[in-house]
């Protein structure tokens, strides 16, 4: 069935969809592919965390009363939102060591904590984190600005410093506004990590490409790797739904209690 649908003829070269190869690729993946999957997830999570932390700092700079800090925020956004992330990746991976006088910034193996990590992966995570920070900063800034001015005034009237008011009063409320768009950003991040393939990081897509060049089963491999990405983003969508439901769920429980009271 699948064969007849997917088969097509191009001149005298015949192409037949290799169903059993495809099913094997998807359902009994090689250890390399599984490792690639793990690398994709790890890179996405670490990049996103980095993006959120840097994004917080950038958002605070953007909300600062000091023009210089707001200017820094503006230029940062101008660059990181105005250039493709792929270009940023090669700029940082190839360009940064060059700028630093040929320093071996991203060697094949670097020792981080208890792990040996590929330098290119570090460059990738740094790039994605920096890129993500630009978008997260706008999301966080909008979240903070959505909180009523009276909240920070009440906090300050109680003797809180602006920093304490931000941490204890504003950010916990802004978090509810920030979570849904943050979820969408992470969905994108899962897919953006495929760009690591251009600097030879053996993540999911890079491993798939290697299988493709060894077997020439292009369509089977690319369709198979799509299934993997769909599984990742699909699983994340479910997690996202649960998180958002628990946020609105606690609100529902509260309203129910009000009625009972």
């Amino acid at each position, binding site marked *: 069935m699948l064969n007849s649908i997917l088969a097509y003829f191009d001149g005298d070269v015949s192409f037949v969809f290799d169903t059993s190869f495809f099913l094997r690729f998807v359902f009994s993946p090689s250890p390399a592919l599984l490792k690639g999957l793990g690398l994709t997830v790890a890179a996405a999570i670490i990049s996103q965390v980095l993006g959120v932390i840097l994004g917080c700092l950038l958002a605070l700079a953007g909300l600062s009363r000091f023009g210089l800090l707001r200017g820094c925020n503006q230029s940062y956004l101008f660059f990181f939102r105005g250039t493709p992330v792929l270009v940023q990746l090669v700029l940082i991976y190839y360009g940064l060591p060059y700028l630093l006088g040929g320093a071996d910034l991203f060697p094949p193996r670097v020792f981080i904590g208890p792990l040996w990590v590929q330098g290119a992966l570090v460059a990738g995570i740094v790039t994605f984190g920096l890129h993500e920070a630009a978008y997260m900063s706008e999301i966080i800034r909008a979240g903070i600005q959505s909180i009523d001015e*009276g909240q920070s*005034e*009440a906090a300050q*009237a*109680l003797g*809180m410093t602006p920093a304490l008011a931000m941490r204890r009063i504003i950010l916990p409320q802004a978090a509810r506004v920030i979570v849904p768009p943050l979820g969408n950003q992470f969905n994108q991040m899962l897919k953006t990590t495929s760009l690591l393939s251009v600097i030879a990081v053996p993540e999911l897509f890079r491993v798939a490409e290697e299988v493709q060049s060894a077997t020439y089963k292009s369509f089977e491999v690319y369709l198979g790797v799509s299934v993997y990405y769909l599984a990742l983003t699909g699983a994340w969508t479910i997690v996202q739904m649960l998180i958002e439901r628990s946020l609105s769920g606690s609100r529902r429980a*509260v309203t129910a209690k009000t009625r009972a009271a």
Partner: protein
Amino acid sequence: MKSAARQPAFVECDSVEVHFGALPVIQGVSFSVSRGEVVAIIGPSGSGKTTLIRCLNHLLAPSAGTVRIAGETLGVRVGANGRLIKLPARKVAAQRRSIGFVFQRFNLFPHLTTLQNVMEAPVHVLGRPKTDARAVAEKHLARVGLADKADAYPRQLSGGQQQRVAIARALAMDPELILFDEPTSALDPEMVGEVLAVMRDLAAQGMTMLIVSHEMGFVREVADRVIMLDAGRIVEQGPPAEVFDRPKNPRTQAFLSKIL
């Protein structure tokens, strides 16, 4: 509390001016308040009452003039050459600890329960142990008649209850002075009484209070002195009986005839 007026000034507002851009909103306002005194600020809408009372805990920095509380100037210190130097945010925050502020729109923290709202500042600003802060918070919630609402969230409370929690939240910091900016004007009429009752109780216990209010019956009963503000200037002040019954200034007369 009338005798308290003879004690040295506790709040001293000296030639305070506030401009928003070119717009002068407070124009050279000076007055003082003694410990234990209850002073009401009245005046037409837009006369600058909110702006003035926000200067008294430095939520707003005056464009000129100074506010001193217990002898300490808010927000600035005098430098070597006599120029005023802004205090860092940390110092200003410390000055505000002993000044309570009750807002027109309550401004309770919606992500915290009633009890947590009242405990928040004692724990995180004063560094009190949680168990102590909880006991104090429960005491103040009981004082405003809301002991049974400790675990409720602000959105589960009526406006009057929210404002009483806001007063308990201010009291938990053990303030020497409480500022009220139209504490009952966002309330449905049937809830005004419960909030005024709490404030009347505070006044009776000797709390120093500055109250912006249009509740003239309450002001007449509780205030030691009334300050009439118009277009950013004090046009008249005195005991409520005098100001309400024999207003000297034509603007006070016009305002009172509209509101009474």
